[in-house]
């Protein structure tokens, strides 16, 4: 249940503005890949290109190829909804559906896919919540609103919601930036467990976090404002943080820039 992702010359645009330019990288299955870089360098845009969420914004489009399982997800005969089901996403701010209970939040994706049987939904709900390390905290109040949980719990609820549909890949867009340190630690522990089953790509502003959780790290940067973001260096995390081969990466890692 994990797939390799190959990006070949991926560029993304907001209207006529090119946000990322010719990104080519291979993301390994059952690993955690971190994308780091200064604000506005296009790392979130690239992440959103991987499950075709970029094009949701008006005027946004993507060029290039993004291969998963040998299929280019930007081909014309590709079903966007199938792509997004296969490649789940967790957002910066916890965003459970405010009108739904914890249970309904978790099974929302399954219901969309036509799963109606109560027993199947119950099983999937428990499995996803266990997978997100949230089961023990909420098992007695599954029918309470999801919005009533703490921020960290809400984010784990969103992770449960994402993994309930059994995706191959989970994308995380700064999942801890709105959380306190304890909740952040819980999410990081969870990421370490999730990589046994899923391919994980995480965008983070926090370099220590990238160093802690990821196997490989990609460093994105821009030359100046208005220029597109580029992939500067992509390597094993240990190498990036101890012995980067590009000067700009080193400047960023050591805090001399960005």
């Amino acid at each position, binding site marked *: *249940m994990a*797939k390799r992702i190959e990006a070949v010359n991926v560029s993304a645009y907001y209207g006529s503005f090119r946000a990322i330019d010719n990104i080519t990288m291979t993301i390994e299955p059952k690993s955690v890949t971190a994308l780091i870089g200064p604000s506005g360098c296009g790392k979130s845009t690239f992440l959103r290109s991987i499950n075709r969420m970029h094009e949701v914004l008006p005027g946004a489009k993507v060029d290039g190829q993004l291969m998963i*399982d040998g*299929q280019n997800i930007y081909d014309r*005969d590709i*079903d966007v*909804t*199938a792509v997004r089901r296969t490649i789940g996403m967790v957002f910066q701010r916890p965003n459970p559906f405010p009108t739904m209970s914890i249970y309904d939040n978790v099974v929302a994706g399954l219901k969309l896919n036509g799963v109606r049987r109560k027993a199947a939904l119950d099983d999937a709900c428990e499995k996803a919540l266990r997978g997100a390390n949230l089961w023990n905290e909420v098992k007695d109040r599954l029918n309470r609103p999801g919005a009533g949980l703490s921020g960290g719990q809400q984010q784990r609820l969103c992770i449960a919601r994402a993994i309930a549909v059994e995706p*191959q890949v989970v994308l995380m867009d700064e999942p801890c930036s709105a959380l306190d340190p304890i909740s952040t630690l819980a999410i990081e522990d969870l990421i370490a467990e999730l990589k046994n089953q899923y391919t994980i790509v995480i965008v983070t502003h926090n370099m220590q976090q990238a160093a802690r959780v990821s196997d490989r790290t990609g460093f994105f940067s821009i030359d100046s404002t208005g220029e597109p973001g580029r992939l500067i260096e992509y390597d094993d995390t240990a190498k990036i943080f101890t012995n980067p081969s590009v000067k700009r990466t080193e400047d960023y890692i050591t805090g001399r820039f960005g």
Partner: protein
Amino acid sequence: MTVGSHSARTRVNLKAQRLPKWAPAALGAGAIGVAALAVHATGFGGPVLTGVTAALLFVVGLAVLSAVVEGGRTSRDRIATSLVYAAFVLALAPLLSMAFTLLSKGTERLNGYFLGVSMKGVSAFDDAGGAYHAIIGTLEQAGIATLITVPLGVLGAIYIVEYGRGRLATLIRFFVDVMTGIPSIVAGLFILAFWVLIVSPYLNNGRPEYSGFAAALALSVLMLPTVVRSTEEMLRLVPGALREGAYALGIPQWKTIVRIVLPTAAPGIVTGVMLAVARACGETAPVILVALGNPAINFNPLSGGQSSLSLYVYEQAGTASKYAPGRAWAGALTLVVLVLTLTVAAKLLARRNKLAR
């Protein structure tokens, strides 16, 4: 190795069967063709029925085709999209029809003569008469109503935004919103019950006085909540830093409001007032009840019945004469031009308003 084989076994299928891009267009053309043929063959109905049949055929056909080729979820998505756009067309149809009717029927009589004479001495069956008296009435009534409402509404909004605290402010805010929903006929009855029947007899030798001023009072009741709400919204948009800057210079609060806050919010307030005036010009019910109407020109809003454009249209609409509908439509066109000019001008002004951006 096991990883590889596992992945290979669960190879995901991201491909979807899609209808070709030209399918909806072809289906639409086909639906129109079949509908036209069916309507023509049965000799039943006209272009409207053809359109409705074609639309139904299109939605049903697309739903079935999509369900077969693309599956139920996509099919439902396509149905929803079609219906959403259909709703739009459905709403534009009466608008276009009304615009067309208004222009074709309204221009028959609308000329300098119509705008320049009243209905004094004109019987319903004469091919004569105009709306000058009604235009005067509308302008005077709306003008007086504006003079009453603007200071009251702006001050009320100032209270809500700048001074109002606690229960009273919440209560006033709530009832301003509730007041926007008061039917115009009730506002008319209120002024009838209060001003015409109780107050005006003291000023008119014991007899109730129906007048343009009473109509203006009723229109004020209808305009007040609109003016308060729009002013309130504009005042809230004025940055707090502007106020603090003035307080820091030692300028008292009332002067800050009058000299700094109000001028900043003025363009937005003007927009709101213009929209309120436009709506007031179109009101008929209160004028029927408290101004009664008058076929002659009456410049004096304080004494004697007065007509208004909307009342004129209503009167002519209710008159049985082959010339009355022409007069009604000409009056309606005049009224719509007046109201839409105000509305469009207000909207254009709002677009240029920097505060609201």
